[in-house]
């Protein structure tokens, strides 16, 4: 035993001495990469040492650190998609701090010219299942009523299924919507939708970067099973004041940004609101609708090594509808978030971030259908504190470690009752709903290792502990990504991840309105967990002008929740006792081809997948298809820059129909015309029917009007003309059963929502 200990000690001493000798022979180049015009820090910019053929990328805050061997002179290329690359030569004897500003490349021809140094992260990075959503495409691809929308673009990516017609809900690799962690500047956004999901809450003018991770999760991410959608707001222009905005059919938006002190601090405020409720008020009667959202962010350089960010977001939807067929509803929901972050660069190799995040979400939905009243209230308040460090010991390692504490309060309620003759029924007030208090601690460490020129690994471990009402759950979540490069443009990747989730969105299978309720794990509701294995082949062509990939995955999910059969939510019931628990599994293969350069850019993605669930107390214990199990999913997104004035874009979507439940038989039970007399439904399988396939083509044309004048001020304008659902395909929204009033024969009725919708909007930028 002592001998072994001494051997181990000797090895550690030897390793440290070798490291110190190596460090004495090395230097570190560190700093930030920014946009020349706005001063925005650039995420994912590449720094490449041309002498030693090693490189790194900037982190979320634009920071980089690259350690290399000393040399007389060293050459570097700083590059980023959409920016002119910059070459730098330095004397390579001492460590150096260097902040680089990259200039945005002009449109069209410049795009072709920079292709030789284009980012090839998709092939070279060890992580798989990560897609950086191209912000440029978000601004050109067509959308409903001309509203640019990041979540609509997410739905076009491989492995991502859209939810119902026109909505921004998305389902990643067989997971439910609650299994997607949507973060805006690290704050969780529980409901990223407006207008029942037609638009997302994210105002694209205020966004800097959007990344979707759907597999091979690094250890710093946790708390959800299926995906992380990491959205970063712009920091604000720290060079000069700028105003941009848009006037659309449904909403208008305005973004103001500028320096508080040039190069030192800046702000950005962005707001959006609908105005149909104001303009059309006399015609709306008992119907009313509006939404708004407001983003604000301030950042300050406290010193050369300290930076403070304060950001916030608030959004609200308020709707009331009085319609035919006794259908009435009122809905009020909103997200509020506030984030304070402190970046500290302790050394050229050590970067830390400390965050405190507040989060508040509520949904209050009341509805009347067929003389039954239902109300759902779902409230969540979170307080998060995080500490993350990034350590770059040498060019072969990048170590992330940290701790995350989260204090969560959930207050869910659901009730449904027949409306009494008096018409008076009890309305739930949020103050009266019992609170569910829980805490989560999570520690993690992650090392991105370049083992050789060909082999890279990303090895991580996350240790979350959840506590509620004296019940604790602790887990060990191993994370592993392996990349092997076959050549500079081809690599094979594999990933294994285990994830746990301590919140659950219980979906209602009956109502077509968003009546899903968030609840916390606890003594009776075990955390959801998943294991996912993925394998991928990545290949770029023609100097990375074309990216292609094929990824296959297999994922198992435990402790999935659904409502028990026959559940009627009552105020007197505890929601947790109305649930049943089961498992799910999903597997599929995803193809992706993306063209990055030239007049025509865009991508084609195709996913073939299958997702099933199995609950002991549902569907006679047999497996059944997941509601959003759609076998084929094809998306094509294309942007064509015709000339300097006109840009055209289109996207086409085809998916197999989702699953829904209808009885297959009728069981007669007759006796004396009693209350139970009649026919009953014979349900043979859950989710036994399929909607018709969904397909849609959207097109848009953008007329650029640069260098315009408005009261002697220069501005760039653009008209955006769009047509959503060009050939007016009546895609299925939901199906309900009715009885023919004369023949009494049951009928299935299908409702479709969005026909062809033309739109026009005007955007400007001062």
């Amino acid at each position, binding site marked *: 035993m002592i001998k072994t200990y001494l051997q181990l000690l000797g090895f550690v001493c030897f390793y440290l001495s070798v490291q110190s000798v190596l460090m004495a022979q090395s230097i570190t180049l560190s700093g930030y990469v920014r946009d020349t015009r706005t001063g925005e820090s650039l995420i994912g910019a590449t720094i490449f040492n041309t002498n030693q053929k090693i490189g790194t990328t900037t982190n979320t805050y634009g920071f980089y650190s690259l350690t290399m061997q000393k040399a007389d002179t060293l050459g570097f290329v700083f590059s980023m998609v959409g920016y002119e690359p910059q070459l730098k030569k330095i004397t390579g004897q001492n460590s150096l701090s260097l902040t680089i500003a990259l200039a945005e490349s002009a449109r069209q021809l410049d795009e072709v010219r920079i292709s030789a140094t284009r980012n090839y992260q998709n092939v070279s990075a060890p992580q798989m299942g990560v897609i950086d959503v191209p912000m440029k495409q978000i601004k050109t691809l067509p959308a409903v*009523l001309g509203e640019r929308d990041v979540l609509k673009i997410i739905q076009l990516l491989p492995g991502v299924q859209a939810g119902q017609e026109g909505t921004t809900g998305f389902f990643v690799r067989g997971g439910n919507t609650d299994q997607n962690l949507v973060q805006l500047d690290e704050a969780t956004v529980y409901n990223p939708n407006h207008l029942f999901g037609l638009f997302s809450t994210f105002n694209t003018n205020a966004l800097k970067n959007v990344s979707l991770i759907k597999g091979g999760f690094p250890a710093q991410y946790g708390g959800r099973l299926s995906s992380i959608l990491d959205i970063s707001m712009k920091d604000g222009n720290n060079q000069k004041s700028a105003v941009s905005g848009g*006037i*659309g*059919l449904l909403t208008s938006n305005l973004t103001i940004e500028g320096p508080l002190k040039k190069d030192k601090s800046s702000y950005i405020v962005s707001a959006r609101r609908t105005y*149909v409720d104001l*303009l059309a008020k006399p015609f709306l009667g008992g119907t009313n609708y509006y939404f708004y959202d407001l983003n604000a962010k301030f950042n300050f350089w406290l010193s050369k090594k300290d930076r403070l960010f304060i950001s916030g977001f608030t959004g609200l939807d308020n709707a009331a509808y009085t319609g035919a067929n006794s259908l009435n509803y009122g809905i009020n929901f909103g997200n509020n978030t506030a984030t304070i972050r402190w970046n500290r660069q302790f050394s050229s190799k050590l970067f830390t971030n400390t965050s405190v995040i507040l989060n508040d979400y509520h949904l209050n939905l009341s509805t009347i259908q*067929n003389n*039954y009243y*239902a109300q759902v209230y779902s409230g969540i308040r979170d307080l998060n504190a995080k500490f993350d460090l990034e350590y770059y010991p040498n060019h072969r390692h990048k170590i992330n470690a940290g701790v995350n504490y989260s204090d969560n309060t959930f207050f869910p309620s659901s009730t*449904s009752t*027949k*409306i*009494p003759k008096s018409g008076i029924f009890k309305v739930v007030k949020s103050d009266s709903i019992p609170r569910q208090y829980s805490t989560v601690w999570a520690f993690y460490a992650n090392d991105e290792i370049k083992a050789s020129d060909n082999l890279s690994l990303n090895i991580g471990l996350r240790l979350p502990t959840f506590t509620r009402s004296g019940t604790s759950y602790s887990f060990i979540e191993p994370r592993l990504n392996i990349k092997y490069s076959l050549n500079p443009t081809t690599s094979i990747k594999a990933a294994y991840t285990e994830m746990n989730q301590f919140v659950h969105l219980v979906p*209602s299978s*009956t*109502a077509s309105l968003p009546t899903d309720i968030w609840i916390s794990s606890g003594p009776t509701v075990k955390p959801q967990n998943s294991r996912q294995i993925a394998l991928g082949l990545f290949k770029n062509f023609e100097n990375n002008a074309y990216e292609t990939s094929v990824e296959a995955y297999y994922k198992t999910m435990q402790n999935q929740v659904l*409502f028990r*059969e*026959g*559940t*009627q939510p009552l105020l007197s019931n505890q929601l947790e006792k109305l649930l049943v628990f089961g498992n799910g599994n999903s597997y599929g293969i995803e193809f992706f081809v993306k063209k990055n350069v030239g007049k025509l850019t865009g991508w084609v993605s195709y996913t073939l997948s299958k997702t099933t669930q199995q609950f002991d107390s549902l569907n*006679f214990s047999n497996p059944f298809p997941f509601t959003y199990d759609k076998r084929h999913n094809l998306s094509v997104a294309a942007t064509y820059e015709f000339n300097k004035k006109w840009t055209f874009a289109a996207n086409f979507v085809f998916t197999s129909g989702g699953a829904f*439940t*209808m009885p*297959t*038989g*009728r*069981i*007669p*039970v*007759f*006796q*004396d*015309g*009693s*209350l*139970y007399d*009649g*026919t*009953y*439904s*014979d349900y043979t399988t859950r989710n036994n029917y399929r909607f018709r396939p969904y397909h849609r083509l959207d097109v848009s044309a953008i007329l650029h009007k640069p260098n315009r*004048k408005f*009261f002697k001020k220069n501005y760039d304008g653009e008209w955006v003309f769009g047509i959503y659902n060009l050939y007016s395909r*009546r895609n299925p*929204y939901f199906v309900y059963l009715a009885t023919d009033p004369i*023949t009494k*024969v049951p*009928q*299935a*009725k*299908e*409702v*479709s*929502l969005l*026909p062809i*919708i*033309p739109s*026009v909007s*005007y955007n400007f930028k001062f």
Partner: protein
Amino acid sequence: MNKLSTTYIRFKVLFFASIVAVIALSLASCEKNLGVTPLPYTGTVSIQCLLSPNEVPQLYLDRTVPYFDPKQTNAQLFIRDAVVKITSGGQTDVLRPDSTYNGFRCGFEYFYRGKIAIKTNSIYQLDIQWQWQNYTATATTDLPVTPVENSSYIQAFNDLYGEHEGVVINFKDQNKPNLYYRYTMARMIDSTARDAGGTKSPCLTDKKVRILEIGRTTYASKGSSGLTIVAEPTFKHKNGDVGYIRLQTMDKNAYDFYDQLDRQKLSQFNPFVEPVFLKPTQFKNAFGVFGAIAVSDSVKFVYPE
């Protein structure tokens, strides 16, 4: 001025375009009858037979049909060509098709009726043969009779089904496991009667006809000395209408079947209740019940309002 007027015109265009778009959007959502290709459905049978001592057995036998099948009524779905036998102690009663007229529904209801009265404390076996299928089950008539102690009326009562009027029945719980209760009320109704959904019979006249209301809810023994159930009447009433209430004490097989029906009925009415799958309980290859009940003496009940 030019700039301002251009901007104003643009705003006007956008304003009217937005109004047009919103109206188009609200009108354009479309509903249509769906041409569903029905999934293959293997039909089976629905069986209802509750043995009550001192009464001849009565059995309802209907075929199940694909969901969108136009056949609806008992007359269309009744199985007339089955061989139905009930055997006990070596004695076999072969049941024959029979019918009664339902005055409210204006039509005959079909069932099988036996000739031999059911005895107490006996074990009965049911055998049905139809289209090369056998359906068998047993029932034991060892249930105690539970007398109704008193009854009253409540104008508004709230339970799972929402607010409804109720017939309140008090009785002494047998305090035994696997005992369940259900109420019936025999009444005479005329053309003024409506069912609980407000539907009027198309054929009733001033001449009164007899109907039997059977409660849809079955109540489990609570093991307490006194138990009260509040039943929702099937038909609406007038002040002074008279009914005769009986309490059925029933076995677990009957409870399992009717409780499932009740839960599914609730999910059919209330759009916010999760659907309920009916599962075969007593028969492996059919839906239904072959159970035993013990029926109390009737108690006169007068609607006070």
